[in-house]
């Protein structure tokens, strides 16, 4: 069953929101300097969520988690994880363009390998084993089984 446009949007959402969330959190936490984990610092850590960068980061990560759970409800774990691993590439680009980090040749090689991996898994089937939810079994059972040979 090919993925619909909506499902591709959800996969893109995982990639983009996880990158945005991590980047925003990293930017926000820079305002606080080095924090030692101790009870003494707890009020400061709790106050961190009123920092606009941190708040936006948390919202992004919530959006990421919703998209991730949505994708897992209709696709295999071994499909979703590689298909959304472009977020590692996006993080490198965010670091390059907004934090002026350099991308070394080894990193470019890494980016190329990840992109190949994404292409490999995206061209295959998204769901190979269908769990039947307890109360909607009637219309979910009638899917053709994918043979082990067909997709390897």
């Amino acid at each position, binding site marked *: 069953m090919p993925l619909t446009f909506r499902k591709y949007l959800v996969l893109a959402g995982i990639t983009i929101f996880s990158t945005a969330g991590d980047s925003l959190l990293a930017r926000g936490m820079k305002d606080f300097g080095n924090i030692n984990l101790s009870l003494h610092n707890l009020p400061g850590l709790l106050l961190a969520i009123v920092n606009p960068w941190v708040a936006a980061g948390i919202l992004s990560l919530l959006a990421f988690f919703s998209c991730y759970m949505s994708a897992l409800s209709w696709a295999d774990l*071994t499909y979703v*994880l590689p298909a959304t691993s472009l977020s590692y590439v996006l993080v490198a680009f965010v670091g390059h363009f907004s934090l002026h980090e350099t991308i070394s040749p080894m990193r470019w*090689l890494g980016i190329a390998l990840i992109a190949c991996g994404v292409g490999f898994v995206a061209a295959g089937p998204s769901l190979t084993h269908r769990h039947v939810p307890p109360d909607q079994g009637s219309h979910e059972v009638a899917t053709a089984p994918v043979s082990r040979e067909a997709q390897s």
Partner: protein
Amino acid sequence: MNDLYTWGAIGLVILASTTGDVLLSYSMKRVGDVGELWKQRGMLVVLGRVLTTPTFALGLGAMAVAFYSLLFGLSWGNLSLVVPASASLTFVANALAARIFLHERVGRRRWIAALLVAAGVLLMAF
């Protein structure tokens, strides 16, 4: 000695996040396609069904363990070792665990994808 702690933390991150991913994936497969469910029954039914799936809470707990193990790992080891090592090995561990526990058909295509991504993530450290 610190090396041992660092690799211990990396191992715990891999174990906990793989457990979490498998449990969350299992839970969401039980819930069913949330897009369809949302259209037919509304958002509250989706939220209710997700939150009342016991394995979902277990999965979230495992993810929390993974997150804190990562923090401890980062306090003992280098960022450029801990993050890529745990992330890339988690891809491989997830492929194994999904095959064993979720009965996903991890064919040649998916193995190659998982290994390419794992190698790529590892290279991002340099």
